[in-house]
């Protein structure tokens, strides 16, 4: 769940599904080639970066995956939810996740 900027900018928060992406790409593609840091909320980028081909925009360009004008497909979260890891592998412990 990514809501660092989205809601302040008037759109739904982004849900990035790791499960969907890892069927198609190994972790290293985004976390080494594209430079995504491995901590939710720590990647400070804007839609303009994506449109210019950085971060998600390396694939979400209308060639490998849908282009960035398909706002609602990524900005699909419930309003009011904070940035964080949600779901499957989350450990119900004292972790910061």
């Amino acid at each position: 769940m990514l809501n660092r900027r989205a809601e302040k900018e008037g759109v739904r928060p982004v849900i990035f599904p790791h499960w969907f992406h890892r069927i198609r790409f190994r972790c290293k593609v985004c976390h080494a080639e594209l430079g995504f840091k491995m901590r939710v909320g720590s990647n400070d980028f804007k839609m303009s970066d994506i449109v210019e081909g950085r971060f998600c925009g390396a694939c979400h360009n209308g060639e490998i995956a849908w282009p960035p004008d398909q706002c609602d497909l990524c900005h699909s979260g419930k309003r009011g939810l904070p940035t964080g890891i949600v779901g499957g592998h989350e450990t119900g412990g004292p972790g910061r996740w």
Partner: protein
Amino acid sequence: MAWGDEWVSLRKDGIHDPRGPAVRVLQEPEVALSKLTPDTAGNMVRWVQSLEKGEINPRANLRPDTKIRLYESDVLLNLKGGMPIVRFPHRQHTLWLDCTNCHDHLFKAEAGATKFSMLKILEGEQCGVCHGAVSFPLTECFRCHSVARPGDGKPRPSLPIAIPAGAVPPK
């Protein structure tokens, strides 16, 4: 339905806006994940096994000049603790990850130079950057603590780490 009713629909997962257009378009987790090797924890998929069996074939690079590095050595950790020894397999990790994802900011490359702490891991540091977030959860103690100590004849409590072929998920 998955083991433990894991794969709820996007409409009911509590994070997608059920009134938005995406839930009518995006792939449902059950559609993709129910075809993969089942697990009993996390998001109920044995991701490494699924990759090794060829059920999935995720791309390892976008750019043609990226060097794809695989590393095969195992590292034994927690040599003096009370729990079974940890066997860290580089091979399974480098199938997914690049060396720079862990070295040297999380773990020094030199053997024995990093002090591990289960408390830090539970707080989302070290192994906990991934385990407990996007890879199998930290409640699966014996998947990492997998090597009996010399002279330790007592059987360890075992968790179901392998599901027999053809096993039927419990209702």
